């Protein structure tokens, strides 16, 4: 048995019903240009991009409408030609249900491109290419939305040997990557070659779960014995698609806590992201669309290829609407996703899947009971954490202790909640604890700035006081100096002379 066939099984994980066939019976449907596109500015991890257009502007397809603000940010482009209708706060796909800044475009239906030009990356060099990628708008399309130029630029500090293509798609229901591999395998393989070259990697391993035989067939068609690209089938165990879990499954390399894969010569990209990079470099096309799975409790669940900004509500309508009208929708998978506060939102770069909830997903039928310390959760945790301890510390606001138990290594996969016989919503507690800790750290940072500014002000006031005292002293000194008395003398002389003249005049009289 050679290394390629060997699978390194990670701790825990779960075998849930995949429910993927619900949305794979029909081909991906390309949605025509809608009447309105709503583009939230926050669609990625990092800084909000800077708006480059104003209301009333005419924009072309692919035109930059918001520019990356700093390195950890991503740009946004007009998905089609049309007019900027407004820039306003509207609902975005976010668990808070709060509005955020969006650019609204009214398409003119001409779909007119800006001047596109491919990038000769070998000629302009990698540095220049990555700078261009910063404003390509490409972020990880697997759901994490991490700006891709950062991942491509990393090999300048770390030598990358292996590109791992994440084709695991391990969460139940989601099939957008599966369908993309079935329908765009040729483009994907070209993209893989390109990304491998960009990274300077020697080999590529495509990690794919064994529940996607059609996609695997398509990929295998392009793989020959001599190529540096191989596909490795991994078992269907959730969460095999988590970066560190997939690396372990494939390579047997355990990336330690707080370390990045790049430090071990590995970089990972999702299949859809690879195609986006390929289209940008080869055709000069920025990130304008994606495939999204609309599935679950619907009459016609399927995958759609849509422009960013397309209304989610319209897609749900197109899918025949809910069978059981419970008005509950989940964005992402059933394990890691979140309940959408509203479907009056648009498709964004992070939206890989929306599930119309089945009845058993929303009815919290099992009453949460106290933790019985069965440690089933620890057995299921793929990160080898102790979820029962994390739960206890998060529940009682003992955040420091939670951090000592590596709360921030938790990937929120939900395996622990899934197996817990007491039906405790464990992940909810971890999310709560994490966001409290993050807010606290920000407050600490701001307090630090305020402290420095206050210290500076006190110094400034002291300095000004000293300067004022010095100035006063100097003035006093000057007034007693010779210059002053000379001036007074001159004045006196002038007065005397004038008086003399008067006296003379009087004498003449």
């Amino acid at each position, binding site marked *: 048995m050679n290394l390629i066939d060997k699978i390194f099984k990670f701790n825990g994980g779960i075998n849930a019903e995949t429910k993927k066939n619900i949305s794979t019976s029909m081909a991906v449907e390309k949605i025509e240009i809608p009447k309105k596109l709503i583009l939230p500015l926050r669609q990625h991890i990092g800084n909000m991009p800077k708006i480059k257009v104003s209301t009333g502007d005419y924009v072309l397809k692919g035109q930059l409408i918001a520019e990356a603000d700093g390195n950890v940010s991503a740009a946004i482009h007009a998905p089609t030609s049309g007019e900027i209708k407004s820039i306003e706060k509207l609902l975005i796909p976010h668990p808070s249900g709060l509005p955020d800044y969006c650019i609204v475009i009214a398409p003119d239906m001409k779909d007119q491109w800006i001047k596109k030009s491919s990038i000769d990356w070998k000629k302009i060099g990698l540095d220049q290419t990555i700078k261009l990628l910063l404003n390509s708008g490409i972020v990880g399309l697997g759901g994490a939305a991490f700006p891709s130029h950062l991942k491509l630029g990393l090999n300048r500090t770390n030598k990358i040997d292996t590109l791992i293509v994440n084709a695991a798609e391990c969460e139940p229901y989601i099939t957008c990557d599966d369908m993309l591999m079935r329908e765009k395998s040729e483009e994907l393989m070209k993209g893989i070659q390109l990304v491998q070259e960009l990274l300077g990697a020697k080999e590529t391993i495509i990690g794919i779960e064994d529940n996607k035989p059609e996609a695997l067939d398509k990929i295998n068609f392009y793989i020959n014995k001599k190529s540096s690209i191989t596909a490795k089938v991994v078992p269907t165990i959730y969460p095999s698609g988590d970066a560190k879990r997939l690396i372990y499954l494939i390579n047997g390399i355990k990336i330690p806590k707080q370390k990045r894969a790049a430090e071990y010569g590995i970089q990972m990209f999702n299949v859809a992201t690879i195609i986006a990079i390929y289209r940008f470099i080869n055709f000069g096309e920025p990130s304008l669309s994606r495939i999204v799975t609309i599935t679950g409790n619907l009459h016609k669940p399927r995958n759609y290829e849509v422009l960013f900004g397309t209304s989610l509500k319209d897609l749900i309508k197109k899918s025949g609407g809910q069978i059981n009208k419970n008005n509950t929708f989940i964005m992402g998978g059933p*394990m890691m*996703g979140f309940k959408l506060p509203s479907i009056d939102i648009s498709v964004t770069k992070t939206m890989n899947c929306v599930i119309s909830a089945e009845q058993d*997903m929303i009815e919290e039928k099992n009453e949460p009971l106290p933790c019985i310390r069965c440690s089933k959760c620890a057995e299921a945790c793929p990160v080898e954490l102790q979820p029962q301890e994390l739960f206890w510390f998060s529940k009682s606001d003992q955040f420091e202790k939670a951090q000592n138990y590596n709360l921030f290594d938790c990937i929120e996969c939900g395996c622990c909640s899934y197996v817990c016989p007491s039906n405790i919503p464990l*992940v*909810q507690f971890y999310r709560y604890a994490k966001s409290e800790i993050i*807010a606290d750290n920000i*407050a600490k940072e701001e307090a630090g700035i*305020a402290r420095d500014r*206050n210290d500076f002000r006190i110094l400034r006031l002291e300095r000004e006081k000293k300067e004022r005292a010095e100035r006063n002293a100097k003035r006093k000194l000057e007034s007693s100096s010779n210059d002053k008395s000379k001036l007074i003398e001159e004045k006196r002389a002038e007065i005397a002379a004038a008086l003399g003249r008067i006296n003379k005049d009087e004498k003449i009289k």
Partner: protein
Amino acid sequence: MLTSILIILFLAVIIGLVLGFSSVQFKVKGDPIIEKIDSILPQTQCGQCSYPGCKPYATAIAKGEADINQCPPGGEAGVRALAELMGVEYKPLNESHGITKAKAVAFIDEDTCIGCTLCIQACPVDAILGAAKQMHTIIEKECTGCELCLPPCPVDCITMPEIKEDTENWKWKYPVYNINKTDSNKPKVSH
């Protein structure tokens, strides 16, 4: 005899060097206990504790002159942290110093401002920009919400709007469960 004297001399020199070096190298900046207290205080610099800023209050606590429950912006969590650090019992906030409010930042109505510069002189963190006879603005990021600029303004054009929840500062809430009785099969949504 001579060797032992030499050895002792040698040791004395070495120890002296080490001590001298470490006193320079490991010199503590300020009083460590004051620094520790100050690092808990929210640095709003509002003076509600009846000291002219957080550092002076920290110094007073360290000296045992002030109680630990005099800082309204620090709130209950702040008092708890101070109690733990000082090894004393927690006590509720002394409300004679004020109550904990939601964080706010100052906002100057720039049409009404007469450019008198009085607010600049009051701001403990230099978060107000402007010159004499010119309209003044708040550097929102730097403003601690201390409210010290409010009373000096002769035309009452500064307000303190609360910082609203948005997608950036939003936090996951403490989980509350629905209690239901029947049993069912998984999967369920865990969020």
